[in-house]
């Protein structure tokens, strides 16, 4: 889905905030640290308990925040909502319990947990140096093919190794395919780049590419 999370190249944004932020503190606020810890522990538990939960599905949950909330909320505020939604979706808690700020029962039961399934890996079609074009259209619910490279020509810079395709992993199927670093000339991405020698390197799955 082409939701507002796909931000690369969007124009009209303000200067970068907090550029002078201090390195010494890991988190700027206590609530952010706790949000992070709760999310990390919950993800580990859902993975261990094999409910079918995957990081790509979680990313999609974040992407389905209302667009104005996605752009307006702090990073960790988004995570609080996404963890609540995840808890409800998995059967761990109910919406009303979060409104009440307390649990109505002392136990939970996952709603029919179903582990992820493996699908046969696909073969690699490209090697370093190959000229490629990023796919123009993609209809999956969740994808990691960014909008700003679609339809643009690039060159395979290096081969990374097989990784599960996010588009499938987001719906519980692990299908590994080759991944690559693909190099795009800025001049092939942005009209104002002119003859700039600067470049953009991006990780891409095999099925996101076509031979040029």
């Amino acid at each position, binding site marked *: 889905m082409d939701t507002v999370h*796909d931000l*690369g190249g969007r124009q009209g944004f303000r200067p970068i905030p907090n550029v002078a932020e201090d*390195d010494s503190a890991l988190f700027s606020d206590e*609530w952010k640290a706790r949000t992070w810890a709760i999310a990390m522990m919950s993800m580990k538990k859902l993975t261990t308990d094999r409910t079918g939960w995957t990081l790509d*599905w979680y990313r999609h949950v974040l992407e389905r925040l209302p667009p104005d909330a996605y752009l307006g909320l702090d*990073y*960790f505020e988004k995570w609080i909502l996404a963890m609540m939604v995840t*808890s409800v979706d998995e059967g761990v808690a109910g919406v009303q319990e979060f409104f009440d700020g307390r649990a109505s029962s002392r136990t939970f039961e996952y709603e029919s947990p179903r582990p992820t399934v493996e699908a046969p890996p696909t073969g690699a079609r490209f090697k370093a140096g190959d000229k490629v074009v990023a796919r123009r259209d993609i209809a999956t619910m969740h994808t990691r093919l960014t909008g700003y490279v679609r339809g643009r020509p690039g060159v395979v810079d290096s081969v990374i190794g097989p990784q599960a395709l996010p588009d499938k992993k987001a719906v519980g199927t692990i299908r590994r395919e080759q991944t690559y670093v693909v190099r795009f000339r800025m001049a092939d991405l942005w009209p104002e780049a002119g003859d700039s020698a*600067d470049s953009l390197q991006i990780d891409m799955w095999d099925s996101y590419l076509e031979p040029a």
Partner: protein
Amino acid sequence: MSSYDSDKVAKLHRELHSHLPPEPALRLKALETVLVEKGFLAADAVDKWLDDYSENVGPMNGAKVIARAWTDPDFAERLAKHAAEAFSEIVPSVDKDYPLVAVFNTPDIHNVVVCTLCSCYPLGILGMSPSWYKSTEYRARVVRDPRGVLTEFGTDLPEKVEVRVWDSTSDRRYMVVPERPEGTDGWTEEDLAGLVTRNAMIGTTRDLSPKQEAG
């Protein structure tokens, strides 16, 4: 199980966001209280997790590794070839299989890292990312106008230096290895590590020259 139902979760977001109190600390309290009372999370787990995390990860891990790479060319080569393995020589808690890649600045090349889709960062090694790294402004702008963005960090790049922006969309994580600044001959590794900043490891800072003492 996970429903993989996109519209269902969108509806839940709207319901929760419009009825919960707006303060993030209150929302967090509701989340933590419910998950603990349900027995999904153990009562003292959050504090324990945070203690462990702050003990083992943080920008100093990267700074130590970069200082070693500056003083030991063989190590720099190992870092370029297999970053996590090289990391684990210096920081034993680092998993040798962590999918980390170190990209090296040179006099002609400057690297800068972003995740336009969600803010991926090597959190398991370098700790939490800076808040600007997670901002919509940085995610939107740096792939299109890297030189303009770097200027806002006080980094003005000469035209002849090529900028390489890395958009980290897969499981792989990137770390920039800055150049060793001039005027640091004979420095100890510890002192060198003190020069390396989190911003330099992302690539928004290029020059790590020691500050001149006034007077």
